[in-house]
């Protein structure tokens, strides 16, 4: 049975409140409720409130986090690298939706009751603050064997592909593995150990329809299982949140079609 609430050790308590410094322009101050967890402390996770003068930061949510770390609380932990939507490191839940903080404009955030919540990617083990453990997620990606599998002898130059076959990879190869989609998926929440999740399945489809790949049958065999593929119930959260605008739900639908087509 699906667990709808957090387990005992994960209940979130009220934490600190960091008011904006005196003299801040009140109209520019927005309140961010940020999930905090310190593995070295004996206490569980908490919500800290930060009142931030957003005229002091850049336009993106990541800028706010960096501002908080630099100016308010240097212990705040989060992953970030490229700051331009290509590395996928800063994926987190912002304002109730998974996204990458670096491409999410603060002006886009609605908030709830004047407070914008920021928490780690949902239903994951938290290492610290906004940093979740993605080991299982990466293992699922690796299990998809995300590389060309061939049996024919290697050509002298490159494996050739017609432009129209190459076009089929558009909307698939762009995945940056930020895990926004998989950790948005209720099926992945309840069965993340057995269901592969949208990111891994999009990756699987990227190789299934690659005209150069010669392991289509084996790849489909590996997905033929009540959980791995078929736990997708087309809830669509993956497609709703993908910060790159990709459509994992459609890719999964296409895999289901391939399964059916090879049976009839």
């Amino acid at each position, binding site marked *: 049975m699906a*667990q709808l609430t*957090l387990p005992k050790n994960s209940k*979130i308590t009220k934490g600190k409140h960091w008011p904006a410094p005196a003299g801040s322009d009140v109209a520019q101050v927005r309140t961010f409720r940020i999930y905090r967890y310190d593995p070295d402390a004996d206490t569980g996770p908490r919500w800290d409130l930060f009142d931030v003068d957003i005229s002091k930061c850049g336009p993106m949510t990541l800028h706010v986090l960096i501002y908080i770390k630099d100016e308010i609380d240097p212990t705040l932990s989060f992953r970030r690298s490229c700051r331009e939507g290509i590395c996928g490191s800063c994926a987190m839940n912002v304002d109730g939706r998974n996204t990458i903080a670096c491409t999410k404009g603060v002006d886009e955030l609605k908030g709830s009751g004047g407070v914008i919540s920021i928490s780690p990617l949902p239903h994951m083990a938290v290492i610290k603050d906004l940093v979740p453990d993605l080991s299982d997620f990466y293992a699922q990606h690796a299990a998809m064997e995300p590389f060309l599998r061939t049996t024919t002898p290697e050509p002298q130059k490159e494996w050739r592909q017609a432009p129209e076959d190459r076009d089929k990879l558009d909307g698939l190869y762009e995945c940056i593995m930020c895990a926004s989609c998989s950790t948005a998926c209720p099926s992945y*929440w309840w069965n993340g150990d057995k269901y592969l999740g949208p990111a891994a399945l999009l990756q699987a489809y990227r190789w299934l329809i690659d005209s150069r790949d010669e392991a289509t049958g084996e790849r489909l065999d590996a997905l033929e299982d009540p959980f791995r593929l078929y736990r997708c119930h087309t809830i*669509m959260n993956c497609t709703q949140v993908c910060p790159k605008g990709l459509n994992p739900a459609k890719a999964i639908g296409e895999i289901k079609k391939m399964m059916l087509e090879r049976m009839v």
Partner: protein
Amino acid sequence: MSSGWNDPRPMSPFTSIWRWHVTMVTSILHRASGMVLAAGSVLIVAWLFALAAGEKQYDKMMELLGSWPGKAVLFAFSLALFFHLLNGVRYLLWDSGYGFEKETANRTSWLVMVMALALTLGLWAAGYWMFEAFPGQKSH
């Protein structure tokens, strides 16, 4: 992960922080309406039993179904039927590879909810109209 969290580290919040999408609403409603239909089929069997048991028992059943709580149950049953039927078409289209685009899925979500409600109200309006039009029929 569904049963028991053995990790010493906390699990990050999920249901408590998520801002719902309309496609998520229709997904959960599909499941809920499916459960209502399963329960409703038991009701149909009970009605058939009453029919087979004789006039007195049948009258009693019809009295029960004709009461306000009975009508409320039947209304929910018919609403669940229309919703499940219409949303089922979305699943058929998805299985054929259509309707996965975000905007399309959002629009069809709203469409099936509005249409299910409209068809249910239409069915009940038609039912009441027939009852009015043929007053000779015995009211149960």
